[in-house]
């Protein structure tokens, strides 16, 4: 019986193989990505839809682990001469990819060469800025973008006698103290501390993280975020940490459960946390824009993005490039972007998709999803809020986190910690510059 099944299966496999073989002219394009769960389904659906829409190219999506794993897998594959056609790389890997001239193919070049219609102006400027050269040429194709917001437990606020979610940092500090009275372990906390407390904070207040437009205009950039404003923020947090009004939750997002469990009433993290909150929070919640210091002129500015973009690898065949270009055109389609936005919780990357979602009344039912968009489009980006591009950013974030931890643990003063973060970071930048420019 089992043997007969095997025979039948083999026969089926054989026929499938034979019927598939005349279609060998199809060009396969490998797409390595880091999307898990429902967003993995979205990736697969996009590939299937594209494959069904034409018969010349086949996009083959492959899950390669976390963002860092995917990047490492791509680098290793490139060194072995076997890179995929498309690679999804998180925003902090941008400088690493960009510095690898010859390993990558800039998206603007690709689209021009292949004669695909491509207008960078149609994308949200806060997104394109992050992935473009100083001259405005887009290097990678924006895929999934998010931003940082402040998640609010409305029930906890009410219990603590607070009427409305905080808008400014002084309000956050005051509310954190009141919330702490009702929750002994945590009033306010945050995830992705360097993204939130250094990178987003600087953009939001229109102050630089480093010179050369935060590295976008060249690798010879020098860090300078050890400024009075940043020091003031950290000093306040150190003070609140003493009685756990602010309570540190780690470098990445492992502490996010402290919001959904109701432990921390205020929580700063990615807008992409939305599906999780929706599924798990058993209280009234909302998300509001990141807080700002009201004494800073013209604050808030605009926020910057997180998430990832798609990079095209160098040295591929003409057919592959043709297929990738067609796939990107397919992805830019307004209806497809609207769908992506509504199903994944990530941001729409084109203005048209944003407008269409807005017109459909989607945000009236889902106001939280519009918060990060409002932050990103709050004002036209400046030198300090276009984005950032520092070499070795993955490692650098660890170094910055280490120093922030030293301050919060009371081992260093806020100023000492930030000075150390800047000088250690600058050493890494010089090392990167050395290999990147040759």
């Amino acid at each position, binding site marked *: 019986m089992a043997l007969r099944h095997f025979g039948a299966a083999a026969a089926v496999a054989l026929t499938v193989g034979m019927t598939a073989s005349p279609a060998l002219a199809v060009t396969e394009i490998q797409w390595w990505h880091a999307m898990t769960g429902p967003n993995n389904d979205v990736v697969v659906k996009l590939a299937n839809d594209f494959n069904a829409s034409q018969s010349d190219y086949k996009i083959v999506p492959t899950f390669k682990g976390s963002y860092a794993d995917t990047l*490492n897998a791509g680098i290793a594959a490139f060194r072995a001469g076997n890179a995929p056609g498309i690679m999804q790389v998180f925003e902090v890997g941008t400088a690493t990819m960009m510095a690898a001239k010859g390993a990558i193919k800039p998206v603007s070049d690709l689209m021009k060469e292949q004669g695909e219609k491509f207008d960078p102006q149609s994308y949200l400027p806060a997104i394109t800025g992050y992935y473009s050269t100083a001259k405005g040429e887009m290097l990678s194709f924006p895929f999934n973008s998010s931003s940082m917001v402040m998640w609010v437990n409305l029930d906890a606020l009410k219990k603590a006698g607070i009427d409305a979610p905080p808008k400014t940092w002084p309000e956050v500090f005051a509310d954190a103290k009141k919330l702490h009275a009702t929750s002994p372990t945590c009033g306010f906390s945050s995830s992705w501390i360097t993204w939130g407390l250094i990178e987003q904070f600087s953009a939001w207040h229109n102050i630089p993280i480093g010179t050369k437009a935060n590295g976008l205009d060249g690798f010879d950039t020098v860090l300078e975020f050890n400024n009075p404003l940043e020091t003031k923020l950290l000093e306040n947090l150190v003070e609140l940490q003493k009685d756990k009004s602010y309570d540190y939750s780690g470098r990445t997002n492992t502490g996010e459960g402290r919001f959904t469990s109701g432990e921390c009433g205020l929580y700063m993290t990615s807008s992409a946390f939305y599906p999780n909150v929706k599924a798990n929070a058993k209280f009234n919640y909302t998300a509001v824009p990141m807080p700002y210091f009201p004494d800073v002129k013209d604050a808030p500015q605009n926020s910057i993005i997180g998430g990832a973009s798609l990079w095209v690898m160098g040295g591929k065949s003409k057919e592959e490039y043709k297929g990738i270009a067609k796939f990107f055109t397919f992805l830019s389609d307004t209806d497809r972007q609207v769908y992506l936005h509504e199903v994944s919780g990530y941001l729409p990357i084109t203005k048209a998709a944003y407008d269409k979602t807005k017109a459909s009344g989607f945000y009236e039912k889902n106001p939280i999803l519009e918060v990060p968009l409002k932050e990103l489009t709050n004002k036209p980006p400046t030198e300090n809020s276009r984005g950032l591009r520092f070499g070795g950013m993955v490692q650098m974030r660890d170094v910055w986190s280490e120093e922030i931890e030293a301050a919060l643990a009371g081992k260093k003063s806020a100023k000492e910690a930030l000075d150390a973060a800047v000088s250690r970071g600058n050493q890494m930048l010089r090392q990167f510059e050395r290999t990147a420019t040759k």
Partner: protein
Amino acid sequence: MENRAIFSGRLLACLLVFPQLAISLIFFYWPAAQALWQSFLVQDAFGLSTEFVWFENYVNLLKTPEYYQAIGTTFFFSLLVVFFSLAFGLLLAVMANRNIAGVQIYRTFLIIPYAVAPAVASVLFIFMFQPGLGMIARALQRNGVDWNPVLNGNHAMILIVVVAVWNQISYNFLFFLAGLQSIPRSVIEAAAIDGARPMRRFWTIVFPLLSPTTFFLIIVNITYAFFNTLGIIDTATEGGPNGSTATLVYKVFLDGKAGSDLGGSAAQSVILMIIVIVLTAIQFRYVEKKVHY
């Protein structure tokens, strides 16, 4: 007395040694040579530009205070892990080496933790110890202990030591138990007849007779603490907070993999290799003299 195997031709001898040699060459000498070579280079992540820099990677390394912190952390961590995993392993082995009902079942249960992968063990313990979520963390906080391994370096160190020890006890238990069972009963019985109490019997007879096992386990456990705890540290603390749980091997991994700093990472791995070679040499030279076979 002379009991050596004598081979008539060189060929057969070479043939017999070859597989072992080949494995050593491919899996140890070749990668070690690669690391050495890489440590003299500065290279970008994609390997597109390479510069030969002599000892610059080493010089940079020895200029960073964090590197010395990592050396200290490694020795402190290894000392704790080796001591506690051996002590508990021995204690459990002595307890399980008695004639009691169901001893086989106890032994089996004691061996099971070894089958748990380090990363899985970490995750289990993180669930229990995570502030705000874990049961043990909540219990500690209720009882006035301000438990927070994400911010308190000592707490983070305790966490990884507990996981590393827990993960290694079974292995030590297994060897100690085998060692205990090979000690002739008659020796212990003779001592008992002479009136030696159990503690005295243990420290004067059993423990010295276990010395070959202990020596072997010390070396294995040091190697374990130095190298194999990478997964535990990565899942439990990621070297934090403030670098307080970043051991040498974790730094090699972090700088090489996450940081794509292959030259610096290679230099670190060469230094680490030298440290372990020296440590092992010292043990064979001095500690082994105290071992009675």
